[in-house]
């Protein structure tokens, strides 16, 4: 019973992290900007949230502190994502290049500043690992009173956002405009839509969502090693986005499939049947990525991505 419960708790946490970050990336990609820097946004959101959790004094009531942490980490990642908007929209930079730069930059900034923060007399170099036990206990509710089975209530925010995103993309004017900027920016522009502004908003939303994903990721544990960034979850989210074919519902399903294998890599030692097989733990760790490659083989044949994805919009070419 405990095993089943802990499987479920890991599973929904991973589903929430991956689907929220991938859905954020969808806003960016649907409007025509490659979301390669999801990993960077997640790291930055996690970094801001982590620093907040570290510095907030314990005199602040829990509820207020939690809200401060959530807002600062979401907004921090959102603002960070605007760097991509600046480079790719204003200066028409190569999107893959700028995305890669932001991925490296966020980890570097996080490590430098956190080492600065954790410096003591005894440890002059500092430590890139932060501990936030107090907030771990605030964010994680121990369900059923069983040790080791906890539920992070940030998941609820993420899960509520999924249907809202679905409605925004398919049922609102904004959703259609967003998609038109990624499919055919010239005709969108000729119809009076401000392509660059729409893309900017798309990138900003992707930052906000990924920031929440990053915070959720680190609060699954009581401490986090920032030298590892978001541990590759941003790249996984990007993969989920692609094999979810840029559709909210498929993305959710894709995140679910992925999370099953991701959970398996964490939980397999406690399942007797799998533990007895004697397969290296690294195989289970690699499994989500192998499955992803195989799924991509079957889903990539017909390219359904936004047609203008990766191309800066140039008004002069209209």
């Amino acid at each position, binding site marked *: 019973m405990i095993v089943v419960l802990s499987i479920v708790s890991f599973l929904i946490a991973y589903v929430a992290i991956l689907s929220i970050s991938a859905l954020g990336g969808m806003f960016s990609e649907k409007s025509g900007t490659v979301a390669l820097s999801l990993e960077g946004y997640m790291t930055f959101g996690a970094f801001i949230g982590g620093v907040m959790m570290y510095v907030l004094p314990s005199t602040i009531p829990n509820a207020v502190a939690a809200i401060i942490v959530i807002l600062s980490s979401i907004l921090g990642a959102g603002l960070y994502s605007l760097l991509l908007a600046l*480079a790719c929209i204003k200066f028409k930079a190569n999107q893959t290049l700028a995305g890669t730069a932001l991925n490296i930059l966020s980890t570097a900034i996080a*490590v*430098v500043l956190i080492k*600065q923060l954790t410096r003591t007399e005894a440890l002059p170099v500092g430590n890139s690992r932060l501990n936030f036990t107090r907030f771990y206990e605030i964010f994680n509710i121990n369900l059923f009173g069983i040790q080791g089975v906890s539920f992070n209530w940030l998941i609820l925010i993420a899960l509520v956002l999924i249907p809202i995103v679905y409605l925004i993309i398919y049922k609102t004017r904004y959703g259609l405009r967003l998609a038109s900027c990624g499919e055919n920016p010239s005709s969108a522009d000729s119809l009076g839509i401000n392509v660059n502004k729409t893309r900017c908003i798309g990138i900003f939303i992707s930052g906000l969502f990924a920031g929440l994903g990053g915070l959720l990721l680190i609060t699954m544990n009581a401490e986090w090693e920032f030298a590892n960034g978001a541990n590759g979850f941003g790249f996984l989210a990007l993969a989920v986005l*692609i094999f979810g074919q840029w559709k909210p519902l498929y993305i959710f399903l894709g995140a679910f499939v992925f999370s099953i294998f991701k959970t398996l890599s964490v939980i397999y030692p406690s399942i007797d049947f799998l533990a007895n097989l004697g397969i290296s733990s690294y195989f289970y760790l*690699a499994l989500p990525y192998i499955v992803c*490659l195989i799924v991509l*083989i079957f889903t990539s*044949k017909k390219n359904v991505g936004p047609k203008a994805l990766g191309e800066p919009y140039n008004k002069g070419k209209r």
Partner: protein
Amino acid sequence: MNKVKTFFYSLLKKESTKTVVTSLWCALIGLIIGFILLVCINAKNAPYGMTSVLGNYLIFTDPQDKLHYFGQTLAKTAPLLAMSLSILVSYKAGLFNLGGSGQYTIAVIIISFLGLEDSANWPWWAVMIIAMIGAALWSMISGALKAFFNVNEVISGIMLNWIALYIANALLTSNSSVWDTSHSQAKVITSSSNAFIPSIGLDRLFDGNSIVGLGMILVLIFTVVIFILFKKTTIGYELKVTGLNKDAANYAGINRVKSILIATGISGALAGLAASLNLQNGFTSWQLSSVPPDIGFQGISSAFLGGLHPIGVIFSSYFIVHISEGGSMITDLGFSPEVASIMTSLIIYLSGFVAFIKEFITRYELKRELNKISRNKEEATR
């Protein structure tokens, strides 16, 4: 005076000069922001910290030390240069090689098993060639997926990075002849080993620093080969055309599948060379890690900073290694070495603006030309 001015303007007109000027601008701005960051962290030590980052080996007073660390920086440039060439080749063929880290990792596995004294201890050239072939095959997985199944090479490259990471962790940690349990990393290839790249007397130029050697010369030869490949050969031309416009390439009868496989193969082999230059010089060995090695991403930075030109890449990868080596010296000043990583990533970020700055220069020139024409007209009417 006027002559000098016209000379500079004529230089500015050349595309290559524009690239150099804009790259230097990016580097300068990145460094300034990095300096501001240092001041924010610790204003008292910031100027000295910045001098160490920029000076690297120059801050040593003893000339022998200077030479020793200059050699060290040069030798560490070689792997990064190989990796940048890898990124460059695939980029020219219209592919973005984000799988460099994975290809590097596969080569690391091969080198560890074939090169270490406790396992096979093969001669260095054999280890190097097999590592390059292995990395090339790994990279061609991503190429084949692109060519036959239309899988986005960026995403498959990233997935292959992680798969390679876990393969390396699984294979290397479980083998006692490769794994050094006491240091929790793979054993390092020592200078007495067969697999160590010989220094052919170059070490004597650099205060006996044995890691300076043939590797550096090899990578320069590869740079020239890549330069010639794109400048003079049919294959290079086909790759370039595929990269510029794949429909036009198809129309001209260029086999797209072949181009993709060749491009990914060459770039994988170069990533393997990077691993070989890193490990077979005894700089480092495989360390148990939960994220792929970041050399693949560093290669992207130096490839772009070098203006995606084989010769430019030599300077940009030297520059990046120079800064990061300098950055590793400032820990005792109370800064973390990752400050250098902030600077380099800022520089890559800014190098995205190159196209824009170039356009700015071109516009400035155009304005000058127009002014000249109107001035001439005025004189004529007078």
